[in-house]
């Protein structure tokens, strides 16, 4: 057996691990610098960087110390990549290749953009032209796979582009990452497009449908495909189904003109599909208007249900128990299409606090668990808004909070 065999090494590793875990001690600036760097960049700092960061911490400029850590490409290639990837697929797995959704989040963070653009802007980030990558294609993920496999530093090689020029979706129909290819592939594929709303709520308002369940909303927009008597028992509908669909269906109506189109026979995994949008003047052959056929499927399940005629969405959750999501009172609570829905969601208090909560869990490696944590979340959320929704500010505030004492 080789002495360099895994079993020999494992013994050594375990011994080293024990020696570490036995160590508990107060954290000075150098210790704090190590924690911040490791949590933010995912990698140990060089001695020089450690020193530089610890001096900044000593001088009271922890923010700049965190910024140094965020300049390390590990922040993008390791931390953000792992953090964002689960938002981009239904399985919520982190083991998926880089894609336009992930890259766009990274780019918005790097450029300290207004993070609400995430759900509203005509933006996508791609790799720089001089990297020699395959060009962006709305039909596959080759460009991003190549970028991931390359030596390039992600943090410095992403370039902000105009989404509508890349994907062919009209500018007014773009809605940040919701209309990215990756999101379309995951959430507009087949089905009824409700998945886009559900996963956007889950990933960006930190609420799954169970948390917004409210049976008292007006159910007039629930589509025909929802059985009002599942298995012959309408109590199931009245007690459960209606609680989500009453609010969800009128919101998901915003996506009525979108689809993810692919060849099911030659490409059953939908790897080479593309987002599709019925622009002004285009007519879906099944519906006879711009509404995608998927909005009218299973119409006989409950014929007197709602028939989607357009992409006019309505937010019934502004009233009732879900008013606590802190919707923006300056917005109308209704509109047409994904962009205005994105604005409705991104301007809610829940969107801001959700980003902070996610960053907290990522940086502090735990859930907010006590009054002090909750106070930090509240303060960091305020600071996030005050910074113009610059997500780096949230990383700074949480890294500072969890750097150890």
């Amino acid at each position, binding site marked *: 057996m080789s002495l*360099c065999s*895994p079993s*020999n*090494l494992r013994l*050594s*590793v*375990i*011994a*080293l*691990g*024990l*020696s*570490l*875990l036995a*160590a*508990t001690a107060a*954290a*000075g600036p*150098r*210790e704090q610098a*190590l*924690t911040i760097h490791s949590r933010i960049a*995912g*990698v*140990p700092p060089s001695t020089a960087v*450690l*020193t530089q960061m610890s001096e900044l911490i000593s001088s009271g400029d922890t923010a700049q110390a965190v910024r140094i850590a965020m300049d390390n490409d*590990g922040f993008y*290639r*390791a*931390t953000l990549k*792992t953090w964002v990837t689960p938002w981009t697929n239904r399985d919520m797995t*982190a*083991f998926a290749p880089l894609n336009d959704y992930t890259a766009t989040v990274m780019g918005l963070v790097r450029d300290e953009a207004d993070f609400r653009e995430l759900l509203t802007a005509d933006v996508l980030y791609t790799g720089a032209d001089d990297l020699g990558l395959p060009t962006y294609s709305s039909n596959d993920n080759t460009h991003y796979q190549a970028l991931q*496999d390359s030596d390039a530093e992600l943090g410095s090689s992403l370039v902000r582009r105009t989404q509508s020029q890349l994907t062919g979706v009209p500018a007014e129909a773009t809605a940040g990452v919701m209309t990215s290819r990756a999101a379309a592939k995951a959430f507009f594929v087949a089905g009824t497009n409700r998945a886009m709303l559900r996963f956007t709520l889950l990933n960006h308002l930190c609420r799954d449908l169970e948390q917004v369940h409210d049976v*008292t909303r007006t159910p*007039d927009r629930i589509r025909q495909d929802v*059985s*009002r*008597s599942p298995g*012959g*028992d*309408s*109590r199931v509908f*009245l*007690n459960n189904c209606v609680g989500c669909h009453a609010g969800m269906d009128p919101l998901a109506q915003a996506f009525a003109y979108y689809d993810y189109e692919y060849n099911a026979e030659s490409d059953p995994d939908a790897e080479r599909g593309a987002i599709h949008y019925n622009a002004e003047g285009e007519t879906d052959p099944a519906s006879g208007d711009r509404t995608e056929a998927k909005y009218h499927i299973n119409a*006989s*399940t409950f014929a*007197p*249900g709602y028939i989607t005629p357009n992409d006019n969405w309505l937010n019934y959750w502004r009233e009732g128990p*879900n*008013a*606590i999501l802190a919707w923006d009172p300056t917005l109308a609570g209704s509109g047409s299409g994904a962009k205005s829905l994105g604005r409705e969601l991104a301007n809610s208090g829940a969107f801001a606090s959700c980003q902070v909560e996610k960053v907290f869990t990522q940086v*502090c*490696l*735990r859930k907010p668990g*006590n*009054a002090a944590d*909750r106070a930090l979340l509240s303060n960091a959320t305020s600071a996030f808004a005050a910074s113009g929704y610059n997500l780096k500010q949230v990383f700074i505030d949480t890294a500072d909070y969890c750097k*150890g004492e």
Partner: protein
Amino acid sequence: MAGTISNCIGKSPLWLAGLLSLALLAGCGSGSGEATTSNVKPDNGDEVDRPGVAYDGPAPLTEDVQNFKLYLWDNLAFAERCGSCHVVGGNSPMFVRTDDINQAYQAAVPLVDLHTPQLSTMVSKVAGGHNCWLDSDTACADIITGYITEWASAAGSISNEVVLTAPEIKEVGGSKNFPADSGDYASTVYPLVSQFCSGCHAEGAPLMQQPYIGSADVQVSYEAARSRMRLDDPARSRLVERLAAESHNCWSNSCASDASAMADAIAAFADLVPVTEIDPALVTSKALQLGDGTVASANGRADNYIIARYEFKTGSGAIAYDTSGVNPAVDLTLYGDVDWMSSWGLRFNNGKAQASTQTSRKLFDQITSTGEYSIEAWVIPSNVSQEDARIVSYSGSTQVRNLALDQNLYNYTHYLRSSSTDGNGMPALATLDAEERAQASLQHVVVTFDPVNGRRIYVDGELTGGTDPVAAGNLNEWDSSFALVVGNEVSSDRVWNGAVRFLAVHNRALSAEAIASNFDAGVGETYYLLFSISDLINVTDAYVVFQVQQFDDYSYLFSEPFFTRLSDDPIPTVPLEGIRIGVNGREAIVGQVFAALETDINAAEYANGMQPLSRQGAVVALEQGSELDTFFITFDQLGEHSFARVEAEPPVPQPPADIADQPTLGLKSFASINASLAAMTGISHTNAAVQTTYAKVEQQLPTTSGLDTFVAAQQMGITQLAVAYCNALVNDTNERAAFFPGFNFGAAPAVAFNATGRSQVISPLLNALVAGDTGGALNTQANPATLRAELNGLIDTMGACGGSCSADRTATTVKATCAAALGSAVMLVH
């Protein structure tokens, strides 16, 4: 306004099209529009067990008298039906007199409504309990309705018009609603039912007779008894009437006394239930019960070829009656766990409804004579996970059958024994997997066969995409000894879980148009409820009308509201906003589809006697039962009247509970481990050997930071990756020289790993880990001395090869030391 006002608003074709999609099928009731011949056969005395009545009086004077004889008289003149009383020398009216068919016709005409057969006096008389020849009054009523319908169809007089009738005006009052808690019931009614009804009506009783009002579980008893008690009128409760009027298993010598005791107990319970008072600020219509509505005609169905029909209206007992009127009746006997549905239907939990082979032979006779058939059913599969589950079968066992309709996951399957298939009906025709036709909701399923088109399956009025794998064939191989069974196989080992709300066997393959018509006609009874709003808009006999039906056992469907007025008053223009449906004195909390309605009542949109307000439908919870629930509607605004609805502020959420003892350290993720090893060694993640290893172990590495999630397999993956990086580092002479400056990789272990050499190897590794002494050891990091001791121990072990060390042992030892250090928890935990 009290009294009755008739306003035939249904004469316009536009009105018919707008109100009743079923109305397009005028007159004959056939959906195909082609000339048809009825299947309702006059009983000519051929039936062994039911001899017909011979008529030798004067010939019918008109064709209508001939139709009367053919469709009604011949079927009712038996002594065991109406012939023992309503004849000469018996009771008037003598509509089955045998001496003169023309006089019998004169007697019958006042008793029938050829426009709306189900409203005939003859039907309501029998439905009310007048000498039904079966155990079920509704079954007799349905059979007579069928006879009259056929007569009307032959006469061409049947009407699809709906004549709305002004209901009696009733104010919305407070009412009592059953409390959720069974406590008061337990102390009042339960002692009686648990003592005297539990011998049969309990889950543990030998008969297991539904409803389980005698259950040992008081809540089960309460749920079962609720729909059988009237809080507004205890003496008219079903529990009381069953004893008083039907002498159903009275426990003392006096049914009257027992009924009185039951009525007193229910009254005592009702006294404990507080009255729900209506909010006086609400803008409300007048009140109605379902029975106050105008019955919507279900004509328009293509029923001409029906040879067996089950509407499951009986609601209790062990027999589901064939009300087709085609003799002999293929009545179904219930076995096992089968419940009646109050919305008309049978729910099969683990049971079946099976006919005798003797009566089932009617199917053989009627179907083989035409060589075609259709099985039509309104079904509600309980789930889409059941396989090989028989919904309807005409068979002898699991191995032999004439036909069957099965559910198989998301598919419906059609088996047929023919000259092209085997004795079990195989190969079968199934709906396509991709279409997922079978759903756990109310569906209209029709399977048809004819020698030209072969087998077909229609779901919800649409022909499904499955292609019959065999040629059409013929039915010469059919066996007359099989039995019709529903919800299972005759051998009881192909359980189907679900409900059947209607079942019909036709001996023709229905056309696609006919099937679509039957689908459009729906299932169950629909009523037009006219909610009076006269006093709100100052228009005489003004109503908001809903189509209402009991949707299932737990709810009503209120659909397609429209405004109408039965007077000639001018129609004003008034705003109408926010309709909500009220049940028993309070607005339903859930299901208010019309709450967002915002429109005007106006003359411009009023056409053909109505102004449609919405095409949608609302499902509202049933409370006390369709005979007891009282409905009204409210408006946020109607004319000058409005109700300011204020949404309560949501409660401020409580802070979540603290999470104690969360660790402040955690594991790095797979990507961070990879990046850390790359950063520490200076070897790119794109290095080919590293990439290969990473691709292999990536999903083996940690994804979450929780320390308690760490498992040995993850350490194995980390080790392999660390070895890959260290291997690449040490194999590259430039990289290793830069990383381990001064170390002599060419020397043998004994020389290379002197004190200086060891330091040249270990110190760079500890520095890479930020676990060295440079700048002073970190308090939160592993103790450098301990780390050095461990790594020196490893070097000692690796170098213990005496004089037989291989040439690369020094490099190997460095790799091992490197991997042990960089792949350790010092790297992993942060």
